[in-house]
Every structure is written in C-alpha cells, then in structure tokens.
C-alpha cells in the first residue's frame, strides 16, 4: 500500500487552493469550499495515520536535520491541526455566505494562504522555517483585517502589521543566536544541545518577547482589540481562534523542548525558568483581570468579544507556573475550547451586525430577539467561555484548577474563578438584552441561514467538548510532548 503523505498534503493543498482561487476569481468560492472540505478530510487522514503509527517525523527533501528541514507531528501539533481544520471549515462555510464576490475574490486566496501557513507552522520542527511560516501567517492576517476597509480597520491593520513584523524580528534574532551557538535550527537537536549560556538566555528573552507580542499577552495586547474588532466577522473569528494561538503554540513548543535544560547544572537554569514562568503567570493573571474588566466596560459587541480574547489568552499563561502535564493539557484543552467558542461568538456578533447594521450592546434588544439561533450560539459559546459545565471550557478549567491545587499554587486557580465570574458578567450583560422587547427602528438586513447555523454548530461543539474530553486528552499524549507521565 502506498503510504499517504498527509503531512505534505495538509500544507500543499491549501496553497494550491489559494493559487487556484487567485487564478480564477470568478469560481473562487467554489474552489475555496472544495479546498476547505478536502483539507478537513486530509487532517482526518493525518489524524488516523498518527493514531496508527504514533508521532511522525518527515524529512523534506530527504536530507533530514540538521541540514534539511524536518516536519514533525505529535499529539500537540496534531491537536493544533485539528483545531485549525474544524474552525477553518466552519469559517469557510460562514464566509461563503458572508462576503460578496468583490471581496470574496480577495478573501479566499488570503484565507487559504493563512490556513497553509498555520498548518506549516504547526508541523515545522525547524525554528527558522517557523519564522517563515510566522511571516506568511502574519502578512495574510494583516491583509485580511484590512479587507473590511475604512479608517478603523486600515489603521488597526497597519498597527497589527508593525507589531507582527516586530515580533517576528525579535524571534528571528533569537533564532540567529541559537543557530550560532549550536549550529542547528532543528528543535529536536537543539533540545539536546542547549545549555545555560548568556547567548541562550538572551535568545530566550528575545523569542519570548517577540512571541508574547504576537500572542497579545497583557500588556502587549494593545493591538489586538482594534484589529480583532474591526476585521470582517469571519476574519475576527479566525484571528482570535487560530492566529494568536499559533504564536502561543511556538512559545509552548520552545518552552517544552528547547528551553529546559536537563543535562546541565540544574540549579541556575531551573531557577531562571521558574522565575520566567512566574512572570508569565503574573502577566496571565493581569490579562485575566484587565481583559475581563475592559470587556465589561465595552459598549460595542465586537470589542467586548475581542477583550474576551485578551482574558482567555491570560488563562493560557496560567499553566506556565504550574509546569505539570495536567496543567499543559488543561491549557491545550482551553485553547481548543476557546477556539471553537470564540469562533461561534464572533460569528454571532457578525450576524447581529449583519442584521441590525450596528453592534451597540445597549440597543441589541432590537436585534437579538429576532435572531434566536444566533443568540443561542452566543449564549452557548458564553457558557463555555465562562467555564460552566457541561462545556469544553469547564473541562479545561477543571483540569487547570486541579493542576493549580495539586502544585500547591492555588492562587493561580483563584484567577480562573475570578476570570469565570468576569466572563459571566460580560456574557450576561449581552444576553440580558435578549429578553427585553422593543421595536426595530429600520429595515433589517438579511442574514443567510447558513451563517446562523454555522455559529450554532460551533457553539454546540464547544458544549459537546465537555462530554468527550477523554478523546482529545488521549490524543495529546501521542509522542509525549509534555514529557513522560509519572503515573
């Protein structure tokens, strides 16, 4: 039987799709949708392959590290690919109704490029190659934000572009230092060679700073709310669900494999990493508070949802000081649940905007009641974001709290509780308006049913994730990305 190169297909297929969409703009929606479905199937194929064979390493060009570039799939990267595939498919379906052709012909190639960049990024085992994918992702994301036109979106896109480039350059400088220290850019090789040295520390500092900027961890989140709120709704969804997670993924990967030193004097480095982890945890906690409070203060729905992303990113960083397998799994599950729920929420916000022509929260009652499916989607997604059972968010919160208490650092868990309550406050601030009655002042826009249903399906998925947690959690074990379990 011919071995399927699913690893390659999930990168080449979206690129090919992008090229086809670009060449024949009139058929762009059809080509795009076909690509999306094919890509979803390919990721399933890859999943099946990895389940059968375990973690995979693929030497592009046949050279292998250190000379060539390797692709690597383990549970961690596979989960990211699956999240991307699920969210990507939903966004594709939603977008096929959202954009008119004059914008669709720009949206599809850019989006498929972005998808290719994400897949390539998650699969890459080479830190320089990751830089290239980061840039590919960043430029596509910026162009997508600018797609909605208008002064706000363009300015936000411009700021986003500068931030993105700045982050990449910091990252690249780190890559340069690591390469010139150890003569390799392969993650696996580096993880064996890295020792505590000034150059390594500076490299870690640069890379962490650059990636935090791209991940928008407080206080480096300043660019996120304007960019995520002014972009077209499907773009907002994919930015919040996927793009910020990509840089988080790199950070996590480096943290787990390149940064820790086991083969050297333990004290010094461990202490340093401990300190850095505490700082990341503190920033995460600050992000939870800041994002939550800001979300509560917003008067526009999309900005509220964008600040909710700032809060949720803070959650992810609470796992760093816990430094346990269960904590990492919790963070990944949170990432998964948030991606799905936030997609639903931005889509719901997009529908409301589509229908009522505005997203002022105080006037939502005129709109919300007439879009029950959309409102249900918003509510269900909100439940997951709050971390109430049964939902993916609850599972993640449970695991993270468990990790916090087990590690004796219950205060990080407290931040989860506070974040959940803040989320509850801002979600119900919106939901509350759904029950008051008022008249619609003008002719409503038409919301295609497809857009409402996709949002609802994603929201339901966020809930269902609360009932099928053992599956994704087992998937994460493949290749033990978080180290060997002690059990």
């Amino acid at each position, binding site marked *: 039987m011919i071995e399927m190169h699913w690893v390659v297909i999930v990168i080449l297929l979206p690129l090919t799709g992008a*090229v086809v969409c670009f060449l024949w703009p009139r058929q762009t929606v059809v080509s795009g949708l076909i690509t999306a479905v094919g890509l979803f199937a390919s990721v399933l194929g890859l999943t099946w392959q990895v389940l059968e064979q375990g973690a995979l390493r693929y030497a592009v060009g046949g*050279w292998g590290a250190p000379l060539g570039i390797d692709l690597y799939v383990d549970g961690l990267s596979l989960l990211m690919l699956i999240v991307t595939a699920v969210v990507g498919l939903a966004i594709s379906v939603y977008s096929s109704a959202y954009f008119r052709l004059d914008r669709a012909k720009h949206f599809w190639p850019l989006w498929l490029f972005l998808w290719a960049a994400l897949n390539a990024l998650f699969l890459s085992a080479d830190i320089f*190659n990751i830089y290239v*994918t980061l840039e590919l992702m960043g430029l596509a994301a910026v162009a997508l934000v600018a797609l909605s036109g208008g002064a706000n979106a363009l300015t936000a896109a411009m700021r986003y572009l500068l931030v993105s480039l700045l982050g990449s350059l910091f990252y690249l400088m780190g890559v340069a230092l690591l390469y010139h220290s150890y003569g390799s850019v392969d993650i696996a090789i580096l993880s064996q060679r890295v020792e505590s040295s000034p150059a390594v520390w500076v490299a870690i*500092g640069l890379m962490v700073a650059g990636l935090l900027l791209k991940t928008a961890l407080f206080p480096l989140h300043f660019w996120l709310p304007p960019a995520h709120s002014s972009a077209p709704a499907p773009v907002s969804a994919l930015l919040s669900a996927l793009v910020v997670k990509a840089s988080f993924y790199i950070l996590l990967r480096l943290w787990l494999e390149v940064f820790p030193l086991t083969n050297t004097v333990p004290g010094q480095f461990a202490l340093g990493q401990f300190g850095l982890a505490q700082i990341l945890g503190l920033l995460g906690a600050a992000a939870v508070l800041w994002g939550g409070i800001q979300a509560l203060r917003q008067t526009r729905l999309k900005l509220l949802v964008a600040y909710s992303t700032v809060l949720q990113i803070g959650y992810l960083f609470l796992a760093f000081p816990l430094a346990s397998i269960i904590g990492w799994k919790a963070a990944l599950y949170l990432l998964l649940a948030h991606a799905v729920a936030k997609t639903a929420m931005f889509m719901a916000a997009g529908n409301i905007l589509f229908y009522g022509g505005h997203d002022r929260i105080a006037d939502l009652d005129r709109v919300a009641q007439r879009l029950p499916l959309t409102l249900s989607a918003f509510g269900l997604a909100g439940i997951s974001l709050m971390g109430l059972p049964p939902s993916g968010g609850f599972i993640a919160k449970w695991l993270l709290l468990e990790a916090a208490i087990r590690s004796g650092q219950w205060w990080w868990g407290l931040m989860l509780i506070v974040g959940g309550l803040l989320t509850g406050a801002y979600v119900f601030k919106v939901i509350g308006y759904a029950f008051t009655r008022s008249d619609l002042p003008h002719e409503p826009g038409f919301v295609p049913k497809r857009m409402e249903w996709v949002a609802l399906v994603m929201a339901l998925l966020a809930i269902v994730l609360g009932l099928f947690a053992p599956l994704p959690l087992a998937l994460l074990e493949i290749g033990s990305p978080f180290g060997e379990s002690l059990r």
Partner: protein
Amino acid sequence: MNNTGENTIPLSLRLLLMVLLTVMAVGLAYAVLSLPAQAPGLSVYAVENINISGVSNPVTAVLLNYRAYDTFLELGVLLLALLGVWSLGCAGCQHQSSPGPVLDSLSRLLVPILIMVSGYLLWAGAHAPGGAFQAGSVLGAAGVLLLLAGWRIHAGLAGLPLRIALVLGVAVFALVGAVLILPGGQLLAFPPAYAGGLILLFETVATLSIAISLTALFLGADPDEEDAS
C-alpha cells in the same frame, strides 16, 4: 515629511526608553561576545553533500536543495504580499509620474542590460554567488524602470496570463515537489542525477515570478482591476 511625531513624546519618556534600550543593547552585545569564537555551523554537512546537490555553490545548494522548502514558502510570502496589496484596492493611492526624456532614454538603455545581467546571475548561481533572487530582483528593477517610463502591461495580458506568471514560482515548486513524492521519495527530494536540471528549472521560474511580483508590487494595484475602474 512632518515632524510632529517626535515632539509629542515627553523627554522623560524618551530618556527612559533610551536607558531601557541601552540595557537591551548591552545584553545583546554580551550575548554576541559570549558565543564560541569559532564554529563551523553546518558548513561541513553542506560541503559534504554538495556533490549530490546538483550545484557547486553551497549557498544555492542550501536555498534550492537542502532547504528548498524554505524557499518555496518564501515565494509564497512574496505572492501573498502581492495578494495583500491587491486586496487593498489602492488604485488611486499612487500618483503617476510623467517620464521626462532622460528617464525615457535611460530606461531604453538600461533595461536590455538589466535583462542580460539577470540572465547571467541566474546562470552563475549554480557555481558562484548569484541565483534566482539576485536575478529576479535585477529583472524586477528593469520592470520598475519600465513602469516609471510609463509602460503598462497590455490589457490582454493583465488578467489570467499575468496571474499565471505571478504564481509560476509557487506552482512549479508545489507541482514538481509533489511529483517527486510519487516514485517513493519525499517532498522536494531531488534525485541527484536530475538535481542540477531541476534546480535550474526552479531558479528560472522563481526569477520570473520574483521579477514580475516585484514589478507588480511597485505598481500597487491589480492592473486588470485598474482598467475596469
């Protein structure tokens, strides 16, 4: 250029920033100086395999064989930037310059030379410094010069033909790279016997795509759409 920007920042903040950045610079310098004084990096491996790479210039071997995947993605970045620029729909943003007689004759003189230089660089890349990027940018410069001189692409070529030329690099990489999988190889794994030819093919299409992309980037908007509007 206006100069409002600098003055809005209070001196105290600027001083603080300078102090912080100085600290950072010292750290960076310290990191550089702490690096091992001698390190071969990957040059040993690169040279070891040069015979089966298809070229004799090690940089080209890295770019188009060992790490051809990077180059492939990077052509993608270039194409993507063009997509991004076109999606901005900035047809009216750029003001036209009317070429004077000097520019006109200069371009008549320079363009053929640039094309020749580009061709040479492309060919030389196999054994000496040079290659697709150098060749592509020189050819792109020729295109820019033509644009400045008022030349525009023929309307009949502005649609699909132009687009095909733009995606040529990415498409050929993807297609050939994928075809190489079929006989049981890996993506972009060149059989040594064909490596030289394949690299030349890649370099040629990459040169064309890069040159046309750079020219199109300079133009700033989709010429097809420009006509339409």
